[in-house]
């Protein structure tokens, strides 16, 4: 099976690599090649499914990746992974077929198909990743391919802006997620996510204990949460999604409704058993696991008793709302409502669908956030339902835009006369989106209502806001869904030109999705039995259970009343849609809009960065030197103060002969003379005095090699200086007293630091200096020691042997530096005389 799993992930990348070559052969029919690759992936995923891999508990496959770091490419197959893989490959086939019609005559097609396939591979990788680093890598690859696809029209500014925006937000979020992953990997001692006995999910209890003991549990949760929220366009990171609609419509349908944005909620679902598992396994709320277990068990029975049973058990354990729920229910419901309101304010059909997507992702997030069985059911089921109706609606929007030539809502009406089949699909999908029974969107929304009602019932107080907000958000969802449907109703406006019939390649994919909507609507429990049930299993901690949807409801549950309120209020508010639309638009100005923050933030960073750069990078040696020397001195002195070092006693060290003292004093006099030199020539000559004194110092310090080198170099430098100074002007005046004072102060600071450092470092003598080894080994007859120096180095001068033998490569590098300098000198002088410059 591992071959199949690997093939599912890597086949699309191979397909992507071949796409440009195929495009040369096939031209626009590359769409069908790409769809074929996707179909093979779909078949492979189906093969996994029919083999029953991962349906009863996940299965993990591992291939060594970086064995030295214990990073393996672990792939993990379970219900959730299979569902996302089905979406990525299945919607992939449909969208690529649809692209064949939609992209007709568009520019950059070979790039388009290659990127689409690469995206599909990345998404399959995200779905099947069983390892934190593999997950992160594929995650960022989806961001990258999304960037390329949003920026498909490379000459349009809007498209570039949108691509950058999505890239900035999703990649930045991915980095937050990586930080969270590192915390988890540190605490858990493993990078495997789920499956087996050694994965994070399996060891959730102790891992969370470790995290809590250092206070990093909530940070880890939030970091992973930011990653999920940016990818899934949750408030306030939703701003990139509407702009992403600059991409060609098939891209919007594929990436920005059915798959990529699902990565965020996938992440939430994937880590849900981990973060909630600790509630049972760890010290916190020991009863919670039991209550969830019984709730889930009751859910198996269905028949509406699930809610009550879970409610009672949960109420018994109503110790505290886990941080998980605080974060994700709040985030999800806020997104669901805000994005639904914004969708009502939309003027463009794709914008409406974009906000609607964010809103429905919020619904899934809120579902996964609720720490009860119903929440997991909501999330698991709505991932499928949303993908089916929203991808269909995007493809419908693409047909409308393509055939009617406009996407403005106010210009579109009565399309059913021209697009009858499309209208039927749109009706199915938008009624499902609105949450009207008996369509599939209704079922998952009903589950959310139950989950939030449970939260309110269980916790009381402000938690009752959860069901209220859920209903408010759903009312707006109802409104914009009906608005989308109304594009097809009524009479044709006069302004609408001739509307073509779409080609079959564009009509069939949404029709297939429409059939999926119908099928799931008709037999929801079959869908659950087939796949959604094991998705649910993937997202709950502990043992696996199934669940079912009782429809029609056997009795009047609170959720049914909530649905009735939603539809009732929605129907009443519908005539006021235009007033609502304009009202919301009026409110949306300035800092109320998240976009305002994004735009000002990015502009501020850009101009701020430029300003800081100009301020720091002056290009003046003086400034750089002053800051570097001053900062280094202060840091060193500060270190001594903090370390509370004491000064050693005054003493005369051995080897400090009168000759050395004399030489050093002359060297200082030379340096003073250099500083005070009235002319360049005087300065160079006194600099030489300093240099030759240093050479004599080396002789006295028993370093003959250094003395020889120093003498040669000093002589050369003197000649060089005199040659160059001959051509330079004499100097230019004294510094102003103020400047001399400031520079003097800085110089004194540097001098004092060096003084202290030398005093402190020479007073501390290591007990066994490294040089002892070298000295010991040198010049000993064979037999006593391995005589490295004489036998292998071929010399008895230890310094020489070090340079030409032990560090030969280093010396070679040094010679190269001198050669480079010589070449540079030659070039600088020759270039001028050739007149190559301005």
């Amino acid at each position: 099976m591992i071959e199949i799993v690997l093939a599912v992930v890597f086949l699309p990348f191979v397909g992507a690599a071949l796409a440009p070559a195929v495009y040369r052969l096939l031209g626009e029919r590359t769409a069908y090649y790409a769809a074929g690759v996707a179909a093979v992936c779909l078949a492979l995923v189906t093969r996994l499914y029919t083999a029953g891999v991962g349906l009863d508990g996940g299965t993990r496959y591992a291939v060594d990746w970086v064995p030295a770091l214990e990073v393996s490419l672990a792939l993990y197959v379970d219900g959730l992974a299979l569902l996302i893989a089905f979406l990525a490959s299945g919607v992939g086939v449909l969208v690529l077929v649809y692209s064949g019609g939609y992209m007709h005559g568009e520019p950059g097609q070979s790039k388009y198909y290659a990127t689409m396939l690469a995206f599909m591979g990345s998404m399959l990788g995200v779905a099947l990743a069983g390892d934190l680093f593999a997950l992160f890598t594929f995650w960022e690859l989806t961001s990258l391919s999304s960037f390329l696809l949003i920026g498909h029209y490379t000459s349009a500014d809007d498209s570039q802006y949108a691509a950058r925006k999505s890239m900035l937000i999703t990649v930045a979020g991915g980095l937050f997620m990586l930080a969270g992953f590192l915390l988890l990997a540190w605490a858990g001692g493993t990078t495997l996510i789920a499956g087996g006995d050694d994965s994070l999910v399996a060891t959730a209890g102790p891992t969370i204990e470790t995290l809590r003991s250092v206070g990093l549990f909530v940070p880890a949760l939030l970091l992973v949460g930011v990653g999920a929220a940016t990818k899934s366009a949750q408030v306030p990171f939703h701003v990139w999604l509407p702009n992403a609609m600059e991409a060609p419509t098939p891209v919007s349908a594929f990436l920005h409704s059915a798959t990529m944005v699902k990565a965020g909620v996938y992440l939430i679902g994937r880590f849900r058993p981990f973060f909630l598992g600790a509630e049972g396994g760890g010290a916190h709320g020991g009863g919670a696991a039991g209550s969830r277990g019984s709730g889930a068990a009751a859910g198996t029975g269905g028949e509406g008793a699930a809610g009550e049973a879970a409610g009672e058990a949960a109420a018994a354990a109503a110790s505290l709302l886990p941080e998980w729920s605080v974060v994700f229910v709040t985030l999800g419901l806020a997104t669901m409502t805000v994005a639904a309101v914004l969708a009502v304010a939309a003027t463009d059909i794709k914008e409406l669908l974009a906000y609607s997507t964010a809103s429905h992702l919020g619904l899934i997030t809120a579902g996964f956030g609720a720490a009860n069985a119903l929440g997991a059911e909501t999330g698991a089921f709505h991932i499928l339902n949303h993908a089916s109706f929203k991808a269909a609606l995007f493809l419908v929007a693409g047909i409308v835009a393509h055939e009617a030539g406009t996407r403005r809502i106010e210009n579109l009406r009565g399309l059913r006369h021209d697009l009858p089949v499309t209208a039927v699909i749109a009706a199915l999908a938008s009624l499902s989106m609105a949450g009207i029974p008996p369509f599939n969107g209704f079922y998952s929304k009903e589950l959310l209502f139950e989950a939030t009602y449970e939260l309110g019932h269980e916790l009381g107080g402000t938690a009752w806001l959860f069901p209220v907000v859920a209903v408010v958000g759903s009312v707006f969802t109802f409104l914009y869904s009906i608005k989308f449907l109304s594009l097809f109703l009524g009479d044709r406006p006069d302004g609408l030109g001739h509307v073509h019939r779409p080609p079959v390649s564009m009509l069939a994919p949404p029709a297939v999705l429409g059939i999926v909507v119908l099928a799931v609507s008709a037999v929801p429990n079959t869908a659950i039995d087939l796949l959604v049930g094991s998705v649910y299993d993937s997202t709950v901690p502990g043992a696996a259970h199934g669940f079912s949807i009782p429809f029609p409801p056997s009795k009047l549950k609170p959720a049914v009343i909530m649905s009735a309120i939603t539809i009732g209020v929605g129907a009443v508010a519908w005539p006021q849609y235009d007033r609502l639309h304009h009202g919301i638009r009026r409110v949306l100005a300035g800092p109320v809009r998240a976009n305002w923050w994004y735009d000002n933030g990015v502009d501020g960073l850009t101009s701020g960065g430029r300003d800081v750069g100009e301020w720091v990078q002056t290009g003046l040696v003086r400034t750089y030197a002053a800051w570097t020397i001053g900062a280094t001195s202060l840091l060193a002195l500060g270190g001594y103060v903090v370390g509370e070092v004491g000064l050693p006693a005054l003493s005369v060290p051995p080897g400090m002969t009168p000759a050395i003292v004399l030489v050093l004093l002359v060297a200082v006099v030379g340096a003073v003379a250099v500083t005070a030199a009235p002319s360049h020539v005087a300065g160079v000559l006194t600099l030489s005095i300093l240099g030759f004194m240093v050479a004599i110092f080396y002789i006295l310090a028993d370093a003959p090699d250094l003395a020889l080198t120093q003498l040669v170099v000093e002589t050369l430098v003197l000649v060089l200086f005199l040659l160059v100074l001959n051509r330079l002007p004499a100097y230019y005046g004294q510094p102003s007293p103020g400047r001399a004072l400031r520079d003097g102060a800085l110089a004194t600071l540097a001098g004092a630091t060096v003084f202290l450092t030398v005093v402190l470092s020479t007073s501390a003598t290591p007990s066994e200096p490294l040089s002892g080894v070298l000295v010991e080994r040198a010049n000993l007859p064979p037999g006593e020691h391995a005589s490295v120096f004489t036998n292998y180095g071929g010399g008895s001068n230890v310094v020489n042997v070090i340079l030409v033998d032990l560090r030969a490569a280093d010396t070679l590098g040094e010679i190269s530096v001198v050669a480079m300098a010589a070449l540079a000198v030659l070039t600088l002088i020759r270039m001028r005389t050739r007149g190559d410059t301005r």
Partner: protein
Amino acid sequence: MTQWLLAAVLGLLFALGTFLVLRRDVVRVVWGVAIISQSANVYLVTMGGLAGAAPIGDFRGETPPPTDPLVQALVLTAIVIGFGTTALALVLTYRVYEEHGTIDVYDLGGEGL
């Protein structure tokens, strides 16, 4: 052993070098860098100990032990590299003068701090 005198000398050399690096005349900046690198070399050699024979030939059984060959090897490299950079800096100075007609950093890039 604590090298008080060398510490004072090196501190002075470093201070003078720093002062020269902050001058407006590019030639003096090059001098400053040269002085600073000389004093850094002397500091390294000092760390190897001044008392002791040169690490050449047969020095078994000698007291005190020979000076540290390791720092000497390091400094030897440093001297040669220092020569390379000084030469390059000088020629760059010369080129700057040819291009701009001045080696005053204020004229070239402003006064800075």
